[in-house]
Each structure stands twice: as C-alpha cells, then as structure tokens.
C-alpha cells in the first residue's frame, strides 16, 4: 500500500519466505504448527464418535469411527493459511473427501448450495457447498501420517485449505446442507463470511 507510513527502524527479517506465489498477502511463513482454539480441547472418545451428513433436519448418512475409516481414503499435500497471519506449506493430510461421502450416501449432486459445519464444543462454521466438492475439501484424520492429535482437531477435522484455516473446523461431527449461507461461530463475531486468503478476506467488510 503506497499510502502506508514508513515505520522508522523497521527493516523486516525477510527470512525464508517461500515462493511468493504461495504466500497470500499479509501472511508469513511458519514451520511450526500453532494451536488456536476458542475453548478447551474436547477429549477424544473414538467409541462414541460419529460423523453425520445432513440435508436440513434429514440425516443422509451416519458413520461410526470404524465405518468412517473404511471409506475410500485420499491423500493431499496442501498449503494452509491462518487468519492470524501464518502460512504453512506442504502439509500432508489423509482423510475422506466430501465427494466420497456424497457418493457413499448415493447422491450424484450435493443437496444444497450452502453448508454449516458442526463440531464438538458447539463450534460451527459456514462454507459454500461448491468449496467442499470436486476434491477441494476432506474430513481429515491423519496429519503427516499420524492420527490427528486433539489440539489440532483430532480425531477428525474439516480440511478446506483454500480458505483461511478457521474454516477447517476442528473436532468436526456433521455437515448440514441448506439453502442459506448462515454465519458460523467466528463469522458471527466479525470474521469474514467467506474467508479467501488471496483476497485477504479476514474480517467482515474486507
């Protein structure tokens, strides 16, 4: 921004920045994996875990832990971008794509244009359906080949890496399809309704 005042004494560290084409505006590269959650990490209980796909109030499909892990698995290597300005490159995940879930319940097309994602701890986030299908998103259960730990969202989190990482909701339990784009937890608290890092959509109005 040409109208930004120069900060005397600030040079910038400009360490390894990675290819500019992979670091969205206002972001910086990190190699660790910071933990950011609004509340306590829920205890992992695989015996009572389930995942549900819903169309409004109608259940389309429900899987327990073993059934979910028996679904076709997909591996991805993606860059992730947190709204708090860190980006992490080449993260490796395994899980079940939303396409696979829709196929498993016998749907050729998703049942609605918008979704609200529900999680343990009453967290929600909204994602347009088109951002979840065609290989763009998965329910991830492995990170770098290991079971996803609780503080990073284990046993399962949504992974929708082309949006800011708060959309990749931890401790995910259901996807509810609907006709309207209803704001989730952070979206209701001033964060952007869509959250595209390349357009720097951090907060409402960006």
């Amino acid at each position, binding site marked *: 921004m040409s109208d930004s005042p120069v900060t005397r004494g600030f040079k910038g560290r400009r360490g390894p920045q990675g290819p500019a084409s992979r670091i969205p505006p206002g972001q910086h590269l990190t190699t660790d994996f*910071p933990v950011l*959650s609004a509340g306590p990490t829920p205890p992992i209980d695989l015996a009572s875990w389930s995942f549900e796909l819903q169309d409004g109030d109608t259940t389309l499909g429900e899987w327990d832990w073993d059934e979910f892990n028996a679904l076709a698995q997909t591996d991805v290597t993606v860059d992730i971008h947190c709204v*708090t300005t860190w980006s992490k490159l080449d993260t490796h995940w395994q899980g079940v794509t939303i396409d696979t879930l829709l196929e498993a319940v016998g749907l050729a097309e998703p049942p609605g244009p918008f979704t609200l994602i529900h999680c343990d701890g009453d967290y929600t986030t909204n994602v347009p359906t088109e951002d979840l299908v065609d290989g763009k998103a998965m329910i991830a259960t492995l990170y770098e080949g290991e079971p996803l730990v609780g503080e990073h969202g284990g046993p399962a989190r949504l992974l929708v890496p082309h949006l800011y990482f708060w959309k990749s909701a931890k401790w995910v339990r259901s996807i509810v399809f609907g006709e309207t784009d209803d704001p989730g937890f952070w979206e209701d608290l001033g964060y952007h309704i869509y959250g595209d890092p390349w357009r720097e959509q951090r*907060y*409402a109005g960006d």
Partner: protein
Amino acid sequence: MPVTDAPRLQWQTAEVREIVEETPRVRTIILDVPSWHGHKAGQHIDVRLTADDGYQAQRSYSIASAPESDHLMLSVERIEEGEVSPYLAGEARMGDKFELRGPIGGYFVWTIATGGPLFLIAGGSGVAPLMAMLRHRAAQKSTIPATLLFSSRTYDDIIYRAEMERLAAADPHLKIVHTLTRGQPAGWTGPSRRIDSEMLVSEGFAPDAKPHIYICGPTALVESSARALLALGHDRALIKTERFGPTGL
C-alpha cells in the same frame, strides 16, 4: 444477517507515545491512535509495519489497555526469531508510526455486564488481554470477585508486577497469585511450579460458583489448564482460551 454488510475495519496510523520496559523481555508500547473508536477488554488488533522500500509485515496483538484508557497499549515479548516483535519490543521509540486495525474478536471478551466471578489464568505475555479485563474492572470500580493466577519464569519476569500489587492492595475482591516456574527470590512463599489442578482448586473458584474463566498463554499451559478445569467440573461453555505460541508474534 448484517454481517456481510459490515464496514471494513480500516488501517489507521498509530504513533508511539511512550514505552515502558516491563521486564527484561517485555515492553509496553503506549500508542496515540487519533480515530480509535474503542474496544472491549480481551480484543486484539492487527499491526502492520512498512519498511522504507515498501516491504510490509503484519501480526496480531492483544490490547492490554482498558477500554476506559485514553491510549492503546500493547505489551510485546521479544521473540528472537520473530519479525515484528523485535521491532516493537526492541527498536520502536517515541514518535515512530505504524498502522493498525481493529478491534478484532468478540469471544475472548469480558465486560462488567458479563458478570462473575472472574477467573483469569495467564502465562507470560499472555497476561496482556487479561490485564485489560482487570484494568476495565478497576476503572469501573467493580466489586465482582476476581482472581488472576499468573505463571512467570522468575520474579523479574512478572509483567505489570507493580500495578498488580497496587490493584490488589486496594481491592478486597481481587486476588492475584503468582507462580514462578524457573527461579524464586529468597523468601518466596508463593507457588513455584507450573499451574496444575491442585493450584486451580486452591487459588480459583469452585465449579459451583460458575466462574467465567479466561486462559491465555503458551499452548501447553492453556491445554493443560483447560483440561484440568474440565476434569474439575467447570462448564466448558464458561472456559475461553487464547494462545500465545512461538509463531504469531
């Protein structure tokens, strides 16, 4: 919902008015922000620094000042491998200018109207947004019972120590407990270990009192404290967390 129609949070130019050396590793930057429209205790801002060749770096910082304060305060710990914190915690001086926008975040927030008891748990520079809550409470002359359990490495690393002593001495409803994890001065009678379940019980409020709990600090402290509080029977909906990891800053 009006969410999508909200006005954009604009970048504003802040000027460094004063700098306070809090500890060997932490400074408070006191800022003049001419068109600041106020905030709630617990909220944060984004800071953007611009080098003379146009290079920019952006990070988030919690606001340490009360909403009632005339100036915005940030308390920044120097992170050697950081990019913005070495400037703020080391290089910045009076009259320097940089941009910020906010306030941001509506969840990790406490106001008098939220009520109490108020139970604050902090590690290191994670105390900043919790100090904003205590300053807000003091500015409002609130008698809501409040306890801060604050983990620091050593006595000299206690951020806001003198102000905390003043606040607690003047207020029978406020208790501040320091634990020193890496070294204690001669004659130290307070706790000298990491925050644990026993300390949360002996210093904090019982689950029956339904305290509003705010935890901010390094991930390990936040995770273990929140887990212990859940096990003690505190309502998860009353436990709000914020992390200060090695990145972010």
